[in-house]
């Protein structure tokens, strides 16, 4: 780290800038991404079209299928397109390009082509956007062999994951949280990489493992502080890559703590937590002192009104309670 402070938005902008400077095949396309249209709705590509030109930084029509289709086509002949789909819910109108094409062309072509594209997309509840602008859909994509999904919990990781995603020879969906853009943290050195598929230990502990990613990391660290006050040492694992996820890091931690809680903003049923929980039970059943707990949002559409939105989102208290459930059960058994 450089000793400076940087926001999520600045980190992502720097990653795009550095990647474009390093490789002429890197290009950006998406709605309003060029400076004439404001440099992206969340300003992540601000300044880049002025620096690299509107051939490589292209504002598009509101046409998600055409955006992702163009990214697929360019990627299979060696460009490194970074497509911005403003909000994750908008990917639903272009699922075909990701699920049927980006994910499968390497396999269906017998390895003759591959699709090194990046989709940057933002989402998240808590800012009053309601049902169609807030969903966390990572489990949909994690269920498709051929796709990779990553999300950062701090600006340095945002930089490092985006650089690694652009380097990667396969399609990567990078989820940004809408509440994160202004959040600051230590700035990474230029060229920093966070390897895909590698989790980080955000806090060490011996009593219970909190497995999480994205916004859940900050909330789990808060919960870990509260648990520490009670003498429970929680270890927080930041997956960083949701698919393919770092099973070995999670298994190593849970083998140590013998208790696990999975935390994510997405709704619980069939979420990423279900797969992670299942794998922990398959591998470490006899080591566990309690069933794995899951903390997730309420299975409704994301509501608009504040009291409802609050009722929808999991809370730090939910994480503490879930950790208690694993430790209480252990004590009772």
């Amino acid at each position, binding site marked *: 780290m450089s000793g400076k402070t940087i926001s999520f938005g600045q980190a992502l902008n720097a990653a795009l800038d550095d990647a474009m400077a390093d490789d002429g095949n890197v*290009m950006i396309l998406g709605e309003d991404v060029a400076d004439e249209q404001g440099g992206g709705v969340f300003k992540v590509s601000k300044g880049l079209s002025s620096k690299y030109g509107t*051939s*490589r930084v*292209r504002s*598009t*029509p509101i*046409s*998600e*299928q*055409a955006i*992702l*289709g*163009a*990214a*697929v*086509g*360019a*990627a*299979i*002949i*060696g*460009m490194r*397109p970074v497509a911005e789909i403003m909000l994750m819910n908008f990917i639903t*109108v272009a699922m*075909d*390009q990701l699920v*049927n*094409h980006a994910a499968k*062309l*390497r*396999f*269906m*072509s*017998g*390895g*003759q*082509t*591959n699709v090194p594209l990046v989709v940057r997309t933002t989402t998240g509840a808590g800012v009053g956007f309601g049902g169609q602008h807030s969903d966390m859909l990572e489990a949909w994509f994690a269920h498709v*062999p*051929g796709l*990779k999904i990553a999300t950062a919990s701090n600006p340095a990781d945002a930089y490092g994951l985006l650089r690694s995603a652009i380097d*990667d*020879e*396969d399609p990567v969906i990078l989820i940004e949280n809408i509440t994160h853009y202004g959040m600051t943290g230590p700035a990474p050195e230029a060229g920093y990489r966070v390897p895909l*598929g590698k989790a980080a230990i955000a806090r060490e502990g011996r009593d219970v493992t909190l497995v999480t990613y994205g916004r859940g990391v900050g909330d789990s660290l808060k919960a870990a502080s509260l648990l520490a006050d009670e003498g429970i040492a929680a270890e927080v694992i930041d997956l960083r890559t949701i698919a*393919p996820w770092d*099973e070995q890091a999670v298994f190593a931690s849970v083998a140590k703590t013998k208790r696990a809680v999975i935390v994510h903003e997405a709704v619980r049923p069939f979420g990423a937590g279900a797969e992670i929980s299942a794998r922990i039970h398959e591998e470490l059943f006899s080591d566990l002192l309690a069933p794995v707990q899951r903390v997730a949002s309420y299975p409704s559409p994301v509501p608009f009104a504040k009291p409802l939105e609050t009722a929808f989102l999991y809370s730090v208290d939910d994480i503490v309670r879930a950790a208690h459930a694993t430790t209480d059960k252990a004590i009772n058994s």
Partner: protein
Amino acid sequence: MNKSDSSHAFTPELARSIYRKAYLINRTDQRFRAMLTNGELAVAYYPVRGQEVTAAAAMSALQPEDYLVTTYRGLHDSLAKGIPSRLLWAEFAGKRTGTCKGKGGPMHITYPPTGVMVTTGIVGSGIPIANGLAMAAQIRGENRVAVASFGDGASNIGAFHEALNMASVWKLPVVFLCQNNQYAEHTTLAAGTSVTSIAERAAGYGMPGVSCDGLDPEMMYQTMAAAVARARAGDGPTLVEAHTYRLQGHIFGADYSYIPKEELKAAEERASMMRLRQRISERQVTESDLAQIEQEVDAEIEDAVAFALKSDPPDPDEIRFDIYETEQAA
């Protein structure tokens, strides 16, 4: 590209080449259907009988390095764009020696050495992908053109409309080749499409739309060549509508009694290889030239069939590879 290169003269050499491609497509389709009928192969197949000339003439307007994205009814396009018969047959038969190691099959043919970049089984999805190929060529300042080949049914799906608008806004070097074979699965053009000519739709996207008789080799070639030249010159996309005909059911073995008998008979006449042979022979192509082409193609197909049949299927362990660049734990 200079003027002389972009002239679209229908030379005897070109006529011979188009006949060779059309005959190859016709006989490959026929042989493949025969093998499905007698049980030598059992795969889903979307026949191309009736559309041979359309693909043979249209693809003759392209350079080998030009890109093609086609669709599940794509055998004719794949052969016309130069995929070697052996590799295509082996892929159709699901063998490890096929273009895609048997992992793609007839609906998912890719062969970059001849520019066949994607064959999609999803109606209309290749059209935005062709834009991406063209966009890359544009950014790199290359002289390549991308072609999206699709049917009349695909012109009713959202991807078509999004892609044509984007291509026009960005003046992409792409040609949208709609092979209007009159049927979207079992539904006639009139029953499922709001216009009588697909080419009319180009006006909505500010690009030229041209209709031609896709069963007339010269007209098909010249229409396509003009659109390709326009794209290559940087003047943007064209929607080319080739009137052609699907002489079989949607998928091999399916009932197609919904096609009126008189209509089918007239189309069989228009799309017949005899008629093509006659037209080509009017272009200073001799009977012995034609006979030699037929003999060579027949031998090529028999060699390819033998190659496909004797090739091994993929090893089951092969499933682990080509999902990602590096194998992930399963």
